[in-house]
């Protein structure tokens, strides 16, 4: 019998996850994986936070724990704590029950559920994403049925923010259009607006009646402070307006594969939030019925216990500090080598990634000759570096930049 799917061709590798696939195949002892944004220790190992292990043990030792289906919107306690984490413990929006929250599958799942909701219930089906953005954003929003446009963001000449371009492009967007904002630690560039710039962005978005959709994947990871990293989101919520927020615990709690996240929709009024919540269920039920219990239980255990919460903050700051230290070391190494060019963006950019400014050829050269793996846009994950491997990377960058083309 012929298959109905006989004509299907093989899909290309995912550009980000494909980097790890290629890295795994490489036999070189000096290979370095600076591709996917998963934190590594100084020894280059994945890290499970101590506080996460503690939470895990508590769960496994609890003989009364069952594995029943969660409600469609997930673990209620987790949802409340997640909303507080991003909006602040004393957020008036939460106190007034204006926030509808659903536990979703990490950042990706939260974005997708939010996007499907917009496609179903919102009158504007265009979303503006920054140029560049995380590669999966385009796919998520397109699959949900939204049409995706871009707004200027990264300025390759300064390796910083193209603020004027950003304001112009958002200023020209049709009223009501959705705008994707990286809450902190922009992926892939590491370039974030200043507080003053955020305030201008907020004013513009509100005056044009645009709908902000925050992707918060690095709260606490950028500066080391959960509150500082949440400030842009809180500024928008403080003005009383509405917004969407996708949260991920993949990086800041190291829960990557457990797929822990939350979508919060901040509404103008409690009765609206309640109706929105009911409609979120109709989006989620035909997708996966209800979210996975394990990771959210770990996160919830940590968030609700003040000792564990404090432990978490300390471990989180340690991760953020190590990354900041890697930035400094790489910058110092390139400066010491006299590598041509201005490399200050390495220490100005923030979060897990650095947009090196290296082009596709240079990246390919570094992979071939130095066994260094990164995405072809020149994005490197600082989390994949260690004091031991910084010299190798610095050598590779130096060689890539100075070689005759």
């Amino acid at each position, binding site marked *: *019998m012929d*298959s*109905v*799917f*006989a004509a*299907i061709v*093989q*899909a290309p590798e*995912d550009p980000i*996850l494909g980097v790890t696939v290629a890295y795994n195949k490489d036999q070189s002892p000096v290979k370095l994986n600076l591709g*996917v944004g*998963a934190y590594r220790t100084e020894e280059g190992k*994945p890290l*499970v936070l101590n506080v996460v292990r503690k939470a*895990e043990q508590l769960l*496994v030792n609890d003989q009364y724990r*069952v*594995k*029943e*289906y*969660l409600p*469609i919107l997930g673990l209620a306690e987790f949802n409340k704590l997640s909303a507080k984490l991003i909006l602040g413990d004393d957020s008036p929006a939460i106190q007034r029950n204006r926030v509808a929250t659903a536990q979703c*599958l*990490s950042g*990706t*799942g939260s974005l*997708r559920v939010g996007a*499907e909701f917009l496609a179903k*219930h919102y*009158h504007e089906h265009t979303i503006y994403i920054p140029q560049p953005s995380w590669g*999966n954003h385009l*796919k998520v929003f*397109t699959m*949900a049925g939204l049409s995706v446009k871009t707004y200027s963001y990264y300025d390759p000449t300064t390796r910083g923010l193209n603020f004027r371009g950003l304001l112009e492009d958002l200023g020209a967007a049709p*009223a009501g259009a959705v705008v994707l904002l990286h809450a902190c630690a922009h992926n892939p560039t590491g370039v974030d607006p200043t507080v003053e710039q955020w305030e201008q962005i907020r004013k513009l978005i509100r*005056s*044009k*009646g645009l709908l902000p959709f925050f992707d918060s994947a690095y709260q606490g990871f950028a500066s080391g402070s959960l509150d500082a990293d949440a400030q842009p989101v809180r500024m928008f919520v403080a003005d*009383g307006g509405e917004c969407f927020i996708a949260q991920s615990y993949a990086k800041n709690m*190291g*829960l990557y*594969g*457990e*797929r822990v996240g939350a979508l919060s*929709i901040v509404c*103008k009024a409690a009765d609206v939030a309640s*109706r929105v919540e*009911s*409609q979120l*269920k*109709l989006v989620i*039920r*035909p*997708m*996966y*019925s209800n979210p*996975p*219990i*394990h*990771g959210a239980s770990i996160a919830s255990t940590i968030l609700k216990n003040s000792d564990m919460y404090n432990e978490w903050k300390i471990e989180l700051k340690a991760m953020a500090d190590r990354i900041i230290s890697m930035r400094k070391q790489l910058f110092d190494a390139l400066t010491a080598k006299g590598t041509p060019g201005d490399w200050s963006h390495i220490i100005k950019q923030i979060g897990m990634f650095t947009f090196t400014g290296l082009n596709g050829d240079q990246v390919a050269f570094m992979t071939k000759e130095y066994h260094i793996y990164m995405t072809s846009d020149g994005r490197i994950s600082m989390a994949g570096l260690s004091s031991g491997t910084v010299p190798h990377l610095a050598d590779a960058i130096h060689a890539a930049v100075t070689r005759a083309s």
Partner: protein
Amino acid sequence: MAISRGLSGRMIDRSAVVGARYMSSWWRSVQPAPKDPILGVTEAFMADPNPDKVNVGVGAYRDDNGKPVVLECVREAERRVAGNLNMEYLPMGGSVKMVEETLKLAYGENSELIKDRRIAAVQALSGTGACRLFADFQKRFCPNSQIYIPVPTWSNHHNIWRDAHVPQKTYHYYHPESRGLDFAAMIDDIKNAPNGSFFLLHPCAHNPTGVDPTEEQWREISHHIKVKGHFPFFDMAYQGFASGDPERDAKSIRIFLEDGHHIGIAQSYAKNMGLYGQRVGCLSVLCEDEKQAVAVKSQLQQLARPMYSNPPVHGALIVSIILGDPDLKKLWLKEVKIMADRIIGMRTALRGNLEKLGSPLSWQHITNQIGMFCYSGLTPEQVDRLTNEFHIYMTRNGRISMAGVTTGNVEYLANAIHQVSKSG
């Protein structure tokens, strides 16, 4: 900019005037959604303070004390997982080990198809996730196809294919008068559907009716589907749960494989391993050859990436550990049989009690039907009476989750059913 003309005809830039404080909610016109017909039942049950309340709504297994069960094999697997493994992202297609073991359950321990690598398979978010991934896949690669869904079926099937934008039709299945299978009408529908239609089949323990075709009937169904070149998609949520023997419960699938169909299967560990909330399942598509399987798998991954990037790791580890360890696997098979046997016992008890009460109606369908659910034949009005007068919770289609029946409540349940149905 939103420009409009004011009364005087002058241009007014509304966008400059409208700020956050002046705008009303974007979601003002969002209607409150109706409660999910199945999950809403448990919500209502939880809210009821009555001490005699009985939940025979959602299909989650309960022991004879009415308590949820975590299998021993699962507890052991969890102990081995905790503290020992990291939480790195799985590949987009999920845990390779888990998928391998899962295919063996469906296709056979020594299946040639597995050896020949002809099966494209990915870890999915339980049965729902597997169905949705397949529906999205069907939409993308067979955009002109439609799915035939049995009447009745699990209500969420309709939602899944609708949200995937695949047009759906129905085929006859349940025969209310006999409370059995409407076989002739089902075969007619298979014959009359346009060639190359997709058919959703419940390989065992049909949800909600508990009515399964016999082996001969499955062979005929397979034959007619083959003649029409239809695509058979199996939603297998109860392997092991129906008869207590996973091999026996997969019989219908094996018949189709013998007949050479290229099938798709959604598998779930929610019930048979009690992993409900962990969301562990698998979607597989049988292809012509290894090359095609690689291509199909890559495309399935492309659909998972914009939905959740990669599936959750914990539940997959539990499954891998259990199925990969011969002793744990044996323990699991034993525990599955215990669950299935308890349900079969409750069917006998419920029917026996109703007959003892002198019910004028025939209740043999209770023991003829198989799996977690019994399609009682009660009307929505009778169900409402059961809820309002007796605090018994079930879905309004009269579906009773036998897993919620215990030696402690079977008499109460039988009496209540008798009360609302004795007048005919």
